[in-house]
C-alpha cells in the first residue's frame, strides 16, 4: 500500500510540474514585498483548497498568534478542478479566527476560484500588516500595493466595490474581495464580500483583513490549464454539465434558491425563531423563498463557471421621504441563512423590513448569521432586564419584529459606542458570559448557530465540526433522513455518519467544488475528473487524504487551545423540542466524545 501510494504520487508530480496550481504567491504587507514559491510538495499530497490551506496555515501561523495581529496569515487556496469543470467555483480561505481563537475557515464563490486559478496560482498567502489602508491588485501573479486611504471608513461596502471596479482592469475575469466598516472596526464576525453578493462569511475573516489595514484584494489572470486527455476531458465535461443542468434538486436552487427550505422546516418545527424560544413561527410564508421570488425577485446570478445560478437578488423599491415621485431601487441578495438569522430569529416577518435589514448588514460587511444570533440574544437579554441603559449608555430598545431598531443596532455593533455593543461585537459567547445568560446564547465552539434545529445530529455537527458550521458535516440533513427512515439514531451511529461526511467534504473542498454539487461529484466522478487532468489518485487515496486533512485541522485547533471536553451545550437547545422530540444532553455529549475519538484515531 505505501508503495502503491508512492508510485501514484510520483505520476502526480510530473503533471503538477506543468500545472500552475503549484505556485503559491506570498505577499508581505509589512515590507510591501511579494514572491512566488513552487509548492508541488503541498499540492501533490493535499490536492488543493482546504488541504493545502491547512498546511500553509500550520506553517505560517505562529502558535498562540494574536488573530488580529500581523502574525496571523490570510490564506486563499484554489483547487485543481477550478477553471476545468463546472461548479468548481469556490475558494477556501483559512486564518486563525478572531471569533473562536482557533481554526478560521470559510468558502466563497463569485469569481474568486476562477480568478485565482486563472492568475496562474494555487494559493495566496498574505502576511504582516500595513501601516496605512491599502488594497492589493494581483494580475497573473504580480502584486501592486494600492492606496486605500480614501476607501477606509466609507459607509457602504457596495461603494468600495464600485470604486475598485472602475479603477482596475479585467472586467469579467476578476474577483474583488473587500471588507466593510465592520471589518475595519474589527467586529469579530465581520465578513469579506466578493462580487457584491457572495461572502467569506463565517469566523471573522473581515476582521483579520481590517487588522492588516487591508481593504480589498482583486485578482485576475489569463492562464489556461492543460489537461491530459482532451477527448476524455470534453466528454466528461459534457457528462457533468448535463447532470448539473438536469438535476431536479439543482433546478430548485435556481428557481426558489436556498430559501426553499423555510416552509418545510417551519412545518416540522425545526426553524429557530425568537432566539430559539420556538422552532416555528406564524406568518413565515411572507418571508419564504416562494413569496420573495413572486413579489421581489429582480435577478438571478451565478458564480463563475456554474450553470445553476442559485443567487437571488430582490429588487426593493423605496420612496424617498422628502421628494414625491422619487424612488430608489436596491438589489439585495437573500438566502436561507440570512432569512433565518435576521428574519425568523428576530421575529421579523415583513419582507421589506427583512430585506432592509439584510441590506444594512451587507453595507456594513457583517456575517449575517452571527449578527442575527447576537441580536436575538440581545433582545432576550433586554427582555430579562440584564442590560441596563444606565450602566452602559444608551442602548436601542430591541423588540421582536422591530426591524428599524435592529437596523440601528447593526450600526451600533459596527461603531461600538458603548460597553454593551463592544461586547456584542466580540460575539454572542463573549457578550453572554459578560452579562450572564449563557443558557440562551446560541453559539457552538464560539461560533453562532446556523438555522437548523432539526434534531440531535445538527447540534452534534455544530459542536464537532472543525468550523462549527452546519456545512461541516450536514447534521441537519442526517436528522431529516433519520426522521424519514424512522430509524432511531444512537450516539455512535450519528458520530460515525457525521465523521465520514466531514472527512469526505474535505475532498470536495480541496477541488474546490460547490457543496451544492456534492451529489454529482461522488467519489468515482471526482477520481475520474482528477484523472482527466492528470492526477492519479485511487479512491482509497482520496479517502485517506480526507481523513488526514481533518486531522490536520484538529491539530491546529488543539494547538490554539480548543478543548473538546469543555465544549458548551447551550441549554436552550435542550428546552425547545425538535422534530426528534426534546434533545437529551447525555446523548449529545456521548456522540461528541465518540466523534473526537474518531478524530484521535486518524493519527494512530
Amino acid at each position, binding site marked *: 500500500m505505501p508503495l502503491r501510494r508512492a508510485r501514484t504520487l510520483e505520476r502526480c508530480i510530473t503533471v503538477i510540474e506543468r500545472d500552475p496550481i503549484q505556485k503559491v504567491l506570498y505577499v508581505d504587507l509589512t515590507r510591501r514585498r511579494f514572491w512566488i514559491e513552487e509548492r508541488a510538495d503541498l499540492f501533490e499530497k493535499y490536492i488543493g483548497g482546504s488541504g493545502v490551506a491547512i498546511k500553509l496555515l500550520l506553517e505560517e501561523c505562529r502558535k498562540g498568534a494574536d488573530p488580529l495581529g500581523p502574525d496571523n496569515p490570510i490564506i486563499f487556496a484554489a483547487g485543481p478542478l477550478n477553471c476545468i469543470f463546472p461548479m468548481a467555483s469556490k475558494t477556501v480561505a483559512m486564518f486563525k479566527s478572531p471569533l473562536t481563537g482557533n481554526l478560521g475557515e470559510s468558502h466563497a464563490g463569485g469569481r474568486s476560484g476562477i480568478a485565482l486559478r486563472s492568475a496562474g496560482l494555487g494559493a495566496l498567502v498574505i502576511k504582516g500588516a500595513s501601516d496605512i489602508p491599502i488594497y492589493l491588485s494581483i494580475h497573473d501573479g504580480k502584486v501592486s500595493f494600492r492606496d486605500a486611504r480614501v476607501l477606509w471608513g466609507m459607509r457602504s461596502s457596495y461603494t468600495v466595490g464600485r470604486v475598485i471596479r472602475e479603477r482596475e482592469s479585467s472586467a469579467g475575469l476578476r474577483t474583488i474581495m473587500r471588507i466593510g466598516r465592520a471589518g475595519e472596526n474589527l467586529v469579530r464576525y465581520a465578513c469579506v464580500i466578493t462580487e457584491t453578493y457572495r461572502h467569506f462569511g463565517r469566523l471573522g475573516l473581515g476582521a483579520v483583513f481590517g487588522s492588516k489595514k487591508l481593504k480589498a484584494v482583486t485578482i485576475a489572470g489569463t492562464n489556461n490549464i492543460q*489537461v491530459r486527455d482532451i477527448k476524455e476531458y470534453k466528454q466528461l465535461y459534457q457528462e457533468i454539465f448535463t447532470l448539473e443542468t438536469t438535476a431536479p434538486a439543482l433546478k430548485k436552487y435556481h428557481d426558489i434558491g436556498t430559501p426553499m427550505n423555510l416552509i418545510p422546516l417551519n412545518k416540522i418545527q425545526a426553524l429557530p425563531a425568537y432566539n430559539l424560544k420556538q422552532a416555528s413561527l406564524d406568518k413565515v410564508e411572507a418571508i419564504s423563498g416562494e413569496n420573495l421570488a413572486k413579489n421581489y425577485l429582480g435577478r438571478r*446570478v451565478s458564480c463563475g463557471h*456554474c450553470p445553476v445560478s442559485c443567487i437571488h437578488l430582490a429588487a426593493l423599491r423605496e420612496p424617498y421621504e422628502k421628494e414625491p415621485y422619487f424612488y430608489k431601487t436596491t438589489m439585495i441578495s437573500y438566502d436561507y441563512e440570512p432569512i433565518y438569522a435576521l428574519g425568523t430569529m428576530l421575529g421579523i416577518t415583513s419582507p421589506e423590513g427583512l430585506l432592509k435589514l439584510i441590506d444594512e448588514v451587507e453595507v456594513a460587511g457583517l456575517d449575517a448569521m452571527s449578527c442575527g444570533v447576537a441580536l436575538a440574544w440581545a433582545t432576550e437579554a433586554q427582555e430579562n432586564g440584564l442590560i441596563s441603559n444606565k450602566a452602559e449608555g444608551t442602548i436601542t430598545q430591541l423588540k421582536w419584529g422591530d426591524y428599524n431598531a435592529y437596523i440601528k443596532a447593526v450600526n451600533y455593533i459596527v461603531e461600538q459606542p458603548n460597553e454593551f455593543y463592544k461586547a456584542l461585537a466580540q460575539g454572542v459567547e463573549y457578550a453572554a458570559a459578560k452579562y450572564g445568560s449563557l443558557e440562551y446564547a446560541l453559539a457552538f465552539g464560539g461560533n453562532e448557530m446556523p438555522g437548523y434545529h432539526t434534531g440531535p445530529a445538527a447540534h452534534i455537527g455544530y459542536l464537532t465540526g472543525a468550523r462549527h458550521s452546519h456545512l461541516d458535516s450536514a447534521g441537519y440533513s442526517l436528522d431529516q433522513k433519520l426522521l424519514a427512515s424512522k430509524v432511531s439514531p444512537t450516539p455512535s451511529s450519528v458520530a460515525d455518519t457525521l465523521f465520514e461526511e466531514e472527512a469526505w467534504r474535505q475532498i470536495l473542498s480541496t477541488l474546490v467544488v460547490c457543496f451544492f454539487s456534492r451529489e454529482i461529484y461522488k467519489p468515482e466522478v471526482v477520481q475520474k475528473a482528477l484523472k482527466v487532468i492528470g492526477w492519479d489518485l485511487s479512491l482509497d487515496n482520496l479517502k485517506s487524504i480526507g481523513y488526514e486533512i481533518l486531522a490536520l485541522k484538529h491539530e491546529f485547533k488543539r494547538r490554539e487551545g480548543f478543548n473538546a471536553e469543555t465544549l458548551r451545550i447551550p441549554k436552550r437547545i435542550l428546552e425547545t423540542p425538535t422534530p426528534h422530540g426534546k434533545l437529551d444532553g447525555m446523548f449529545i455529549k456521548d456522540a461528541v466524545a465518540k466523534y473526537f475519538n474518531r478524530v484521535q484515531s486518524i493519527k494512530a
Partner: protein
Amino acid sequence: MVKTRLSVVDVNLCVGCQCCMFACSRRFGAGGLSKTAILIRSAGGIERGFIVQVCRACEDPPCASVCPTDALKLRSGGGVLLDAAKCIGCRLCVEACTVEAVLWDSESDKPMICVHCGLCVQACPYGVLELSRGV
C-alpha cells in the same frame, strides 16, 4: 454554403455564469478562459446585469480595415477570419472594434476571433445566445 452567425437573443436572461466563455475556450482543449472569444462582464456591477461582448458578424468590419498586414480576412456570412501567420500582434483590431469584441490571447499574443461555431450557444443554460443560419 450555409453560413452561421452568432447573436444575442436577450441579454436580460444572462446570469453571468461564464459557461459560454469556458465552452469557447475549451475549443482548444484546455481549461481556463484565456482562449475565449466571448466575454461576459457586469454592466457596472452585477446588480445591473451583464454585457455580452462578442463579435457581431459585421459585413464591413472595422477590425479588418485597420489590420496592417491583412491578417483579418472577411468571412462570408459576416465577421472575419484570422490568418495567424500574418498577424504581428499590434492590437489595432482590439482598438478598432466598437463593441470591444476582439479579445486577446496573451499566450499566442494574437487576437481571439469568434468563428461563429455555436459552441457557446449549446453551453448557455439560459437561452441568451443564438446561432442563426444565413445563406
